[in-house]
């Protein structure tokens, strides 16, 4: 058995955890994996052979499974959400920078996404580190953002008049009456790492609490541009057996939509989190 290795993908974001079989994880290996997850915000595994049951079992080692209100679930395993794009579909899921579930007052910790069917090329997932984004702010803006809170809403994405309902992914989504919003600090202290992290995202953050839209947008758009700087990101190319496991409190992600005419199916299990402050 080879030794477990943690190798950064880029200096700013993400690490591959190599030399490990998630079906036979020793306690010390689990500890290494846990530390890599805490340190890097998103970790990647290669050449794994998890069945759906094993996928669920691995997820349960991290916490309670959070069943998504909006995503189509796997028929046999309700814990598993299907991130699917058929050959004829043009819209993909997650094709813009976002953080999952930030519209919940108790947002999910993260998701374990496993490749089931991949296009020949394309369909990469990009991640951006919100630790790096926070660290890259000036001291003045860090101080200014402390104490500010932002409003997150899923209406524009999942609501009845929202983005997905009006695309060719519309049929698969559900729960358009479950839309809602939440308020979180703009700068959070990460519950696992204790590090400061920038917690706004273009997918769901609609403004600052107490500010008008007009007041909010210039600073919010600046933060979005800043956080998406290439230095803070990494790009993961999927292969059969690949797994990405990200922390929503430490990263954004973006699903590249560059494989029209091919089918892509990934299985996602989301793990519950805690209130942020």
């Amino acid at each position: 058995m080879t030794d477990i290795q943690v190798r950064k993908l880029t200096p700013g974001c993400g690490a591959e955890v190599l030399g490990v079989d998630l079906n036979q994880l020793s306690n010390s290996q689990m500890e290494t994996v846990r530390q890599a997850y805490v340190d890097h915000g998103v970790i990647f595994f290669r050449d794994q052979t998890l069945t759906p049951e094993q996928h669920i079992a691995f997820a349960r080692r991290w916490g309670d499974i959070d069943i998504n209100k909006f995503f189509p679930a796997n028929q046999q395993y309700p814990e598993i959400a299907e991130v699917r794009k058929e050959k004829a579909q043009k819209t993909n899921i997650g094709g813009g920078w976002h953080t999952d579930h930030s519209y919940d007052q108790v947002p999910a910790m993260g998701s374990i996404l496993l490749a089931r069917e991949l296009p020949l090329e394309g369909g990469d997932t990009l991640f951006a580190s919100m630790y790096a984004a926070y660290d890259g702010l000036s001291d003045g803006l860090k101080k200014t953002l402390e104490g500010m809170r932002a409003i997150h809403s899923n209406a524009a994405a999942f609501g009845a008049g929202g983005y997905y309902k009006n695309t060719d992914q519309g049929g698969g989504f559900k729960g358009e009456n479950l839309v809602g919003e939440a308020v979180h600090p703009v700068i959070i202290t990460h519950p696992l790492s204790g590090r400061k992290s920038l917690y706004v995202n273009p997918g769901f953050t609609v403004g600052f609490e107490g500010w008008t839209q007009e007041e909010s947008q210039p600073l919010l758009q600046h933060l979005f541009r800043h956080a998406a700087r290439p230095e803070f990101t990494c790009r993961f190319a999927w292969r059969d057996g690949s797994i990405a496991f990200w922390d929503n409190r430490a990263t954004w992600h973006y699903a590249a939509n560059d494989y029209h005419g091919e089918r892509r199916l990934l299985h996602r299990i989301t793990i519950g989190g805690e209130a942020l402050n």
Partner: protein
Amino acid sequence: MSQAALKPDAIQVRANPSGFGAEITGLDLSAPLPPATLAAVKQAWADHGVVWFPDQPLSHDALEAFTLQIGPFGVDPFIKPMEGRPHILELRREPNEKAGNFGAGWHSDWSFQDEPPAATLLHAKVIPPVGGNTLYADGTAAYDDLSDVMKKLLDGLTAVHSAALPYGTKGLFAHEQSATHDRTMQIVVSEDADKTHPHPLVRTHPVTGHKALYVSPVYTLGIEGMTQAESAAILSFLYAHMTKDKYVYRHHWRENMLTMWDNRCALHFAEGGYDGHLRVLHRTTVAGDRPR
């Protein structure tokens, strides 16, 4: 009830509907004002930010004397004053002048100074038949209309001011002097202009106690502690906000009109549009206190 109705000899103050900007008549500025009249003028200036007195022919002596009734002269750097009149600047643009008109950017006079001028007085000598309006923006109303949470955040910020963009060694006028020589006004580019000076982004008026936005695209370089891009995200919003139509008063000049504005709560902008015509105004400033 106007004061005029109570006292026939009292001044008349006709404010714009917004309350920002007022015309003052019923007085003669060429002679010292009685204490009550002077107090009423100062009150109107504090209340309305910009006041103007039409039909006031004034000699240089009279302009200086009225300025001193408002307060001691300010310090006017970078522009050569009139010969023998160290406190009067002549804002002059010849009919054939091609250089951009002076003051064509939103600013508060000399806001890069430790104690920027409280008032600027501008007396119209020759006014072109077209163009040459001055726009004033109400920094008090613009601040008042912001959300409370944003106000609170802005209250704690410090803006960095400098004369560098127009008057610095790498500034607009330095560049212009190497390119063209047709500006009538003599601008003294100086290393002094490259210095920076911090002021609160929101300033409390020493007389009215009202808070006002105290930043401008001409003299504010950024927000203390923030990068250029971060500062720009906040400042560009504030500039767009405070120069909205509803906060702007467009001032039309007439010869012999004296206008006095409050740099502590108003920005101004000199419009062009009078190429081919002579325009001459004489300017003084009144010293102010350190913004807080």
